[in-house]
């Protein structure tokens, strides 16, 4: 496997990891398991409701920055950075 292929594989692994978290907080905690999570409370928020209206959005923001940071590392590691 050449360098570009290895870089692409590492990239795909990272994206899949990020998208699992993306799916888990929104579709998982915010929709599929919302009823179960609502039994727990976070301050005045039922937890499932909090994920649907607050938590998932905060996680999305964090995810994009983590992705951007890890991708920059990969760019350097595989030496494919822009000039």
């Amino acid at each position, binding site marked *: 496997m050449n360098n570009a292929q290895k870089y692409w594989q590492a990239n795909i692994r990272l994206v899949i990891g990020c998208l699992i978290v993306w799916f888990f907080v929104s579709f998982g905690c915010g929709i599929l398991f919302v009823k179960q999570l609502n039994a727990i409370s976070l301050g005045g928020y039922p937890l499932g*409701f909090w994920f649907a209206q607050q938590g998932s959005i905060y996680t999305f923001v964090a995810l994009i920055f983590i992705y951007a940071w890890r991708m920059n590392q990969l760019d350097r590691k595989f030496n494919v950075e822009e000039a």
Partner: protein
Amino acid sequence: MTDLMITTYLVVGGTFALYFYIALKTRAKNTGEFYVAGKGVHPVLNGMATGADWMSAASFISMAGMLAMGGYDASAYLMGWTGGYCLLAMLLAPYLRKYGKFTVPEFIGDRFYSQTARLVAVICLIIASLTYVIGQMKGIGVAFSRFMEIPFETGLLIGMGIVFVYAVLGGMKGVTYTQIAQYVVLIFAYTVPAVFISLQLTGNPIPQLGLGSTMSSGEGMYLLEKLDKIVVDLGFSAYTAQKGSTLNIFLLTMSLMIGTAGLPHVITRFFTVPKVKDARSSAGWALVFIAILYTTAPSVGAMARLNLINTVQTGEIGSAEGNLAIEERPQWMLNWEKTGLLGFEDKNGDGKIQYYSDNGLSEAQANLAAAQKAGGDVTAAQAKVDAAETKHAESKFAGFGWKGNEMTKVDNDIMVLANPEIAKLPNWVIALVAAGGIAAALSTAAGLLLAISSAISHDLLKSMITKNIDDKTELLAGRIAMAGAIIVAGYLGLNPPGFAAQVVALAFGLAASSIFPALMMGIFVKRMNSAGAICGMLAGLVSTITYIFWFKGFMFIATTAMAPDTAASWWLGISPGSFGAVGALINFAVAFAVSSITKAPPEHIQHLVEDIRVPMGAGAAQSH
């Protein structure tokens, strides 16, 4: 003129002067600047511009109202309209930036080595963007007429004039820097009233925390707990509880996410940054700026609902003195009744207003009145009223002498527009909300118009019709196309074709079912060929439009609908607005099937795919 009017004119006029100043300073000199701002926009600033580009009149004015009335179920909009940025950042933006051209159809045409593919993309782009821009034009007219008492038509024409000046002159460069200013205006306008209201209700100045805090009225109850209790006591379902089907909420969220990532006017914004890595971080910054509004909206919605109920239900439910007397209505109710966004009817003649859920009685009554007026099926409508009345007679509310919900009209938009007045905030805050609403509508309209004009001048004219035009002529063509698009959008805003309210479902459905899958497969599936991509796009497009028209009527003419637009008749309970995700699945499935039995794409296309996957070698804007 009242003090409030003068303040509003000053604040709104001031923001317009600012937009013009920026437009003059940042005129586009060539097509590169006109289409993609010369690819020199700082990622944080591009994030801010994307925020303004993205947050439309619907986000600013309507979303909090949807949350206030829908409660938990409206979370689909919050997650959908933010989660799409993850897909954009990880699956599309960096690669499309690496490709380094000007428009979305251009990438599709080149990657699938087919002018047909490019044409299909252009058609999707124009339908999606044009339907979307009508809503913005209407939003501008509404903001002018409500706050400045200028007739709707005049307001709309003023809005058209302003967009005309700075978008035609400045192109993407001018639009970008104006959008940055518009973001600042709109975010202040949104958060300042929210902070005040959160302080009043919970003592916590941060709305995101206020929503999870206890009420400052001293009972020690959490705000959401209190809201849940009072809406349930009034017969509504609990605010934080789920009402719709899980499948439909799931698919609506997914459709909005994929649609967000596939909307061309948003994608194009990521063509303006200098480097691939800037495209990645810029998506993050865009979401930061969007999240400030989107995490505030749930607080605005819940608190506005509570304030509205407390205004009408002044005491214990069912007690003689528990409801607002008609002659004691606060000033803000009088103001907004004039606009037709708020209305009541004293059904039981007790001189007081009751706001509660009567289990569909008032809806049946309204349908009956409409049938009597328009000559519809009066017998059937009467039967429904009778059934609802029988059911209502058994409820506890009948025992109070209530005869149906008397708040006959509470428009969603009122939750944001009237919020500062409900909370008795100073005039400058109300003026700021007016300027913010106009900024939200203008910035989105400009972004959409730019996407339309570049599709016409770059994808249709330059690549298909008159191939030999030089840069100067193309720039002029872009400006003329933009002017034309403004006129068409303004005309449709003035003569709304009935379906203006529904078109958002169409815009997101198209973006989700045709554009997003084509872009994603273009980057991630090297084997995808032109036959597969074209068949996939058409299958996604046709299935989604058919499903929407099936329930909404052909071109949204309700009488041509094949089935009633109700949860019972939807396929598997999937609403037309949620179908985009299914359309996208159909697109992927058809594309893979067709491409697996047809020839692999030529060698140079496979090299192109390999090339966009690595950041190295991305240059400045390439012309061809």
